[in-house]
């Protein structure tokens, strides 16, 4: 067994088995079966149609946009599209489920088997199977903390279209689970089928975790519901694995149950007791005829698909000789890829060298600065064109890479162009022999003892002289020229 998948327990190594159910909110103006709006953050109960509130005699009508989005996503995860699918009712009582049933797809989902390829940090590629993608309605929201005895209900989210994407139990580590969700998010964002905002709940993950000894059949699993960040996903898996191993090693048995991840405490806890085990009484919704899609419809959606992250990655590697790792970082978020490609267009010279430079600056300085300030790329004060402008200044020798970092910080603060800031702050690199030689002579004149030591063979002192020259010139001297001229003077 590959070491990376081993979870050490007191009794020796265990293997983790993970399957994920991702609920992705469909990007659409209106809900899955009603005309109500879907915008996030509206005042409670302002986006509720008669259908969503389950008024008597109201009937669902499928939103074609949601169907198109599901097909698009299905194609994005290399899956079969089922030309006939059926909507079922999943029956249960809850105050934020007005009709007493959720319309979902049980036996005949719109999308069948597919897969995702994920990359791990060490460059390993893993293929994770996808069982299905089906369409379903979201429920409303119950608010329990506004009144001592009563609960409040917000139906804005009720009836919003979701795609539930179910993976095979192919995932073997928290890292793989995170990579899978990141990849899936990159795809739906690229396709514009889900905004992938986990913090707003538009992408939620249910995690099925079990442990087993190598070679044994699957163990009993526990399901952790509604994990809403990739960080929590990894934490929840680690905690759940440890909990299950401890139980099994203590001679106990795992109970198949639903658990919740408590982000505050970093643990999972049981959510539903057994006596509330649901019998959902699924049956085909008699209000909705089978959903029939034509091959033409599928093909026209396929033809309109944007370049997917995997294709983009391959192209970037091919065209600009980027490493697989760098390329995968660039395509992980649609915004990053767009920023990068817009930047490429603004480079004076487009070579693999300048492309690599742009890549390094983007995933290095820009990402670091964004992280520091908790900003997203869309809020970045340095536009892609501006960043390319900075690369152009480096490439043409106007500034050194070191000064460029200083210029970048000025750009971050002011949003100005690199060229303007270099001019304004006099940061232009000195590339004439004369002024540099003047300083070299001054420095050597001030340190005759060190010159003697150097000439006696203490080579290390060369760096000392370079440093002094650069310091005297405010860092603006062309470093290659300094080296050359200094060597000449010292003989």
């Amino acid at each position: 067994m590959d070491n990376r998948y081993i979870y050490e327990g007191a009794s020796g190594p265990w293997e983790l088995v993970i399957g994920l159910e991702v609920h992705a909110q469909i990007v659409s103006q209106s809900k899955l079966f009603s005309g109500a709006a879907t915008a996030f953050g509206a005042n409670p109960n302002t986006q509720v149609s008669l259908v969503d509130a389950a008024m008597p005699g109201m009937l669902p009508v499928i939103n074609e946009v949601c169907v198109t989005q599901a097909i698009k996503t299905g194609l994005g995860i290399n899956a079969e599209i089922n030309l006939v699918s059926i909507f079922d009712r999943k029956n249960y009582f809850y105050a934020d489920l007005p009709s007493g049933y959720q319309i979902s797809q049980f036996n005949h989902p719109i999308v069948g088997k597919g897969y995702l390829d994920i990359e791990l940090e060490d460059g390993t590629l893993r293929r994770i199977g996808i069982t299905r993608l089906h369409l379903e309605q979201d429920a409303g929201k119950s608010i329990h903390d506004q009144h001592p005895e009563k609960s409040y209900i917000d139906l804005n989210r009720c009836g919003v279209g979701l795609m539930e994407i179910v993976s095979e139990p192919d995932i073997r580590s928290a890292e793989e689970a995170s990579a899978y969700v990141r990849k899936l998010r990159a795809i739906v964002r690229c396709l514009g089928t889900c905004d992938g905002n986990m913090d707003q709940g538009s992408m939620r993950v249910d995690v099925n975790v079990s442990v087993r000894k190598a070679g044994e059949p699957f163990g009993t699993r526990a399901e952790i519901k509604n994990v809403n960040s990739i960080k929590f996903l990894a934490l929840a898996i680690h905690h759940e694995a440890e909990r299950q191993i401890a139980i099994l090693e203590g001679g106990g048995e795992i109970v198949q149950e639903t658990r919740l991840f408590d982000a505050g405490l970093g643990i999972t806890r049981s959510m539903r007791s057994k006596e509330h085990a649901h019998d959902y009484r699924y049956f085909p919704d008699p209000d909705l005829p089978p959903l029939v899609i034509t091959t033409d419809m599928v093909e026209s959606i396929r033809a309109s698909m944007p370049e997917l992250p995997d294709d983009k990655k391959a192209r970037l590697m091919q065209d600009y000789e980027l490493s697989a790792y760098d390329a995968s970082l660039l395509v992980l978020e649609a915004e990053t890829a767009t920023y990068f490609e817009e930047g490429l267009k603004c480079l004076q010279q487009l070579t693999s060298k300048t492309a690599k430079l742009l890549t390094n600056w983007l995933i290095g300085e820009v990402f670091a600065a964004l992280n520091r300030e908790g900003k997203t790329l869309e809020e970045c004060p340095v536009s892609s064109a501006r960043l390319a402008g900075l690369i152009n200044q480096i490439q043409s020798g106007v500034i050194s890479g070191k000064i460029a970092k200083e210029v970048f910080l000025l750009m971050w603060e002011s949003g100005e162009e690199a060229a303007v800031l270099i001019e304004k702050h006099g940061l232009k690199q000195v590339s004439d022999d004369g002024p540099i030689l003047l300083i070299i002579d001054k420095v050597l004149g001030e340190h005759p003892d060190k010159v003697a030591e150097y000439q006696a063979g203490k080579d290390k002192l060369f760096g000392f002289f370079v440093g002094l020259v650069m310091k005297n010139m405010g860092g603006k001297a062309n470093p290659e020229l300094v080296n050359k001229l200094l060597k000449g003077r010292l003989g």
Partner: protein
Amino acid sequence: MTNSPMKNDLVCLTLAEAKVGLHQKKFSAVELTKAYLQAMEQHRSLNAYILETPELALESAKKSDERLAKGEGRELEGIPLAIKDLFCTEGIQTTAGSHILEGFKPAYESTVSANLKNAGAVCLGKTNMDEFAMGSANITSYYGNVINPWKRADGKDLTPGGSSGGSASAVARGLAVAATGTDTGGSIRQPAAFSGIVGVKPTYGRCSRWGVVAFASSLDQAGPMTRDVRDAALMLEVMAGYDPKDSTSAPVDVPSFEMAMTQGVKGLRVGIPKEYRLEGMHEDLVALWERGTQWLKEAGAEIVDISLPHTKYSLPTYYVLAPAEASSNLARYDGVRYGLRVPGKTLDELYENTRSDGFGVEVQRRILIGTYVLSAGYYDAYYLKAQRVRKLIAQDFEVAFQKVDVILTPTTPTAAFALDEKPTDPVVMYLNDVLTVPANLAGLPAISIPAGLSKEGLPLGLQLIGPAFDENVLFRAGRVLEENASFKPILER
């Protein structure tokens, strides 16, 4: 004297006759409406209406008169109709015959009732019905049972049938020119037969279900209940039509049923299904069925013996599928958003209290049956098997309609029974639907025509079943039966 049995009494006019009278200014819509409001008051003991809306009716009649005066009358301008209380009516209480919806005023109008109002119809009120349309005698209504205007020699109060019993009683007694009904397993045809009026259950998908409180979605269908075949044709033309708000509504054109009605039955092949000759069917009905067959034959139809082999499975199939759908459809009545709320300490208690108080015995029984047949472990044996049998029943009809154009059967196995004779065993009560349920399961159109009287002097109905979206054939054959039967309605007696 409003209870005069004379034909010139305004409430004795058929829809077609009233329409002519209004257009010829023989009387105004307000006069016509007033005559009905008076009759309603006079026969309030029949309990046909849950809610009467006299002010709204007069207001709307006045507007109709203005339109008629300008020559802008629409198809049903000024015609006073009753609406079954299963149709949501904007701003007007809609109860579905249930305590749980008492006081509920929808903010919307069902497509079918909107179609009628947009054609100028005047709404007199909401008619009584079995709770959530579950019943065959109108005794499950929270608002009390409806009484049939027909009387037996023993003078006992009779059931008008159900679930559209209020509509049937109102139309028969002249408390509305015509009324809407809904038919899930016979709820239009059986009360029509018991009350001596015409009732049509159109093809599934012909009338929109939008805004009609759902009982069993795959079976429910709205239809007209009228004094005669022509009225049914006129009214169905207005009620029917494709509605994008109902995904099961059919995008097919609505023909002129009135035109079809006059075409006769010459050359029409009429099927007589042997399986409908039930053991225990009343001899009066056997005789009537034979008479009906003879009338059609004499009018030029060819009579063909046919077999619908799966007929005997219809009732058990229906009583698995309809409760299954109902158990889910009625989950929304939970006391959270509208209608009755009986508080409790927890959410589960709120549900229990509300639904125990809000639903009557029969509704609770069907919710329990439906929940049971959909439960894990029973789903395959009940729901899935019933779905398969339903397909076989539909196939029986498909095969039959390769040989015949229309099928003739009695509508019910007996005449109306007295309210104090109501069966105590619910299964015996369910047998009332045995002849009507197959058409619902197959989604086919069917009509009940008052065709004669029992020895006790009670109305009996003949049923015609047609191929999907061929209501025309029902009106053609129905008209011939009607002409031959010369049935004298209670209003004229």
